[in-house]
C-alpha cells in the first residue's frame, strides 16, 4: 500500500487497472457519483489508456525469422571457442532478401557483444560525467517518487544480460599492443573538439558518445599471404596463431582522431583507407570492393574498430581475403570474404578462446 495520499490521477488510473482496494474503490465511487469533473477526468484517463494500449501488429514472418536467427548467431558467437567459425552463408540464408539489414544485424550481433563492455567501462570510470553521458536519460519531472531507476536500467541490462562478456575487458588489446600509455591518447585528443574526454584503460573515449576511432598504422600481425587451408576453421586457427605470436618490437604508432560532426563517416573512410593499402594486388575483378563488405558488416558502428589488418588466403579451394579487426575493448574478430562470390562467408571471435 502507499504511504501517502494518492492524487486523483493515481486513484482514477489505479481504478481503471483494478489496483484499488475495496475500501478505496468504494470511496472513489462515492466521489464519482457527485463530482462531474472527476468523472470527466476518469474518461480522459480511460482515453489515454485506450491510446497507449493500441495493439502492435505482430512481426512479419520474415522479420521474426531474422530476429531469431541473429539472436541465435549471437548465442553461437558468445559460446565460440578459438577456431569456431560462424558460417554466415548458412546463417543468413533466410535473410538474403534483406542483405543490408542482415549485414547490420550480423554486425549488431557482434558489436553488441563487443561494444557494451566498453560502454560499461565508461560508465564505471572515475569520471562521473562519462557515466552520466552514456546512460543519460532526461526527465523533465523530478517526480514524487524521486528515484533514479531510469539510469539504473542500462546498468541492469548490462548486469543481467551481458555480464559474462565483461570478464576480459581491454586486456587483449593491451596485450596485443603492449599497452597504450596515456601519452598515446591524451596528446592527440582535443577535448574541446567533441566533448569531454574520458580515458579508461589506456584508451580514450568521448563522453558524449563512443566516438573515437583509433587507428594503428603499424598493426600488421598477419602475413600478406596466409596460404591454403582446408576450410575456414583451419584458416582462422592460423590467424589466431599469428595474432598470438604478434609481438612488435615497438608499440605501433597510434593516431587518435575524433570526428565530432560525423565520426561514423570518418571511421568508414579509415576502414576504406586501410583496406586500400593492405589489399593492393590481392583483390580480383570479381570482387574489387572487399572494404565495402567490411563496412557493411560493421554497419552503424565502424567507430568500434580499433585496428585492422588484411591477408590473402585460400580456403576450401576458394580465394579469400581475411580481415582481422580489433575492437575497442579488446576483442578480436576475423572475417573471411570469398573473392569468387564476393560475399562474407564466415566470422569468428578469437577472443572467446
Amino acid at each position, binding site marked *: 500500500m502507499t504511504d501517502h495520499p494518492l*492524487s486523483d490521477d493515481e486513484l482514477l488510473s489505479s481504478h481503471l487497472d483494478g489496483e484499488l482496494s475495496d475500501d478505496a474503490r468504494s470511496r472513489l465511487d462515492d466521489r464519482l457519483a457527485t463530482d462531474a469533473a472527476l468523472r470527466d477526468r476518469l474518461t480522459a484517463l480511460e482515453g*489515454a489508456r485506450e491510446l*497507449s494500449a493500441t495493439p502492435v501488429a505482430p512481426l512479419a514472418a520474415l522479420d521474426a525469422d531474422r530476429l531469431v536467427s541473429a539472436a541465435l548467431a*549471437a*548465442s553461437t558467437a*558468445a559460446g565460440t571457442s578459438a577456431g569456431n567459425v560462424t558460417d554466415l552463408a548458412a546463417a543468413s540464408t533466410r535473410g538474403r532478401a534483406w542483405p543490408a539489414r542482415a549485414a547490420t544485424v550480423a554486425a549488431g550481433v557482434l558489436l553488441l557483444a563487443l561494444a557494451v563492455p566498453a560502454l560499461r567501462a565508461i560508465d564505471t570510470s572515475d569520471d562521473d560525467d562519462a557515466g552520466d553521458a552514456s546512460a543519460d536519460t532526461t526527465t523533465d519531472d523530478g*517526480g514524487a517518487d524521486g528515484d533514479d*531507476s531510469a539510469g539504473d536500467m542500462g546498468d541492469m541490462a548490462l548486469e543481467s544480460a551481458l555480464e559474462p562478456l565483461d570478464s576480459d575487458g581491454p586486456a587483449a588489446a593491451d596485450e596485443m599492443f603492449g599497452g597504450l600509455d596515456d601519452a598515446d591518447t591524451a596528446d592527440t585528443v582535443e577535448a574541446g573538439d567533441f566533448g569531454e574526454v574520458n580515458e579508461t584503460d589506456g584508451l580514450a573515449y568521448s563522453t558524449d558518445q563512443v566516438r573515437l576511432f583509433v587507428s594503428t598504422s603499424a598493426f600488421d600481425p598477419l602475413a600478406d599471404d596466409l596460404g591454403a587451408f582446408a576450410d575456414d576453421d583451419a584458416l582462422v586457427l592460423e590467424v589466431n596463431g599469428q595474432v598470438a605470436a604478434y609481438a612488435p618490437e615497438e608499440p605501433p604508432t597510434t593516431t587518435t582522431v575524433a570526428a565530432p560532426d560525423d565520426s561514423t563517416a570518418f571511421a568508414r573512410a579509415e576502414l576504406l583507407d586501410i583496406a586500400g593499402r593492405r589489399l593492393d594486388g590481392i583483390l580480383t575483378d570479381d570482387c574489387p570492393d572487399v572494404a565495402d563488405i567490411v563496412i557493411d558488416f560493421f554497419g552503424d558502428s565502424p567507430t568500434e574498430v580499433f585496428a585492422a589488418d588484411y591477408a590473402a588466403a585460400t580456403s576450401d579451394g576458394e580465394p579469400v581475403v581475411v580481415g582481422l579487426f580489433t575492437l575497442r575493448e579488446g576483442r578480436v574478430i576475423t572475417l573471411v570474404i570469398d573473392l569468387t562470390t564476393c560475399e562474407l562467408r564466415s566470422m569468428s571471435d578469437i577472443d572467446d578462446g
Partner: protein
Amino acid sequence: MDETTLISAAQRGDQKALDQLLRLHQDRIHAVCRRLAGNDADAMDATQEALIAIVKGLPKFDGRAKFSTWSYRVATNACLDELRRRGRRPDPGLPEFETTGQTPVGGSSPRDPAETVSARLDVDRGLAELPDEFRAAVVLRDVAGLDYAEIAEVLDIAPGTVRSRIARGRGRLADAITGNQPPPDRRQTP
C-alpha cells in the same frame, strides 16, 4: 515441450529449444520495444538487442521469477539502453494507420474516427512525449498487460512508484488528447 523444459534445454545449449523459446516470446517483446522506440525501424533494432540480451542472460535465469517477467525486464532494459545509446528520444514515425484500422488521407476510412481516441492523437507521438520511466511503466501495463506488482519487479521499483508513474504518464497523455494544460498535481485531501 513446455516452457520450463524449453528453458532448461536452451540453458544447456540446445539451439532448437532456444529458437522455440525466442519465437514464443518475441512478439510480445517486440510489442513492448515498438512502443518504447516509437517507430518500426528503431523497434526492430531494439527488439534485436533485447533478444540478444535474453540469449546472453539466459544462463543466469534461475527460475525464481516467471520467465515472462524476467524476459520483460531484460527486454525493457535492452530497449531503453539501445535508445539511450543512440542518444535520442523515441522518434515517432508515420501515424500507425495499420493497427488502428485507419487509412491515410485520401483513403477510405473503415472506422469512424470519432470512435477512437487514436484518431485524435497518434500513439507514438503521445508516448514519445513521456519521460522514459513513465513510458516504460505505461507500456508494461497497457501493452504487456502486467499488473503493478509485476511491473515493480520488472523495473525494480516499488509498487507505489509504479502506480505513480502510470498515473502521471496517462495523465500527460490525457492532457495531450484533450488539449489541456497539465493540471496541478492535486493530492486528495484526507
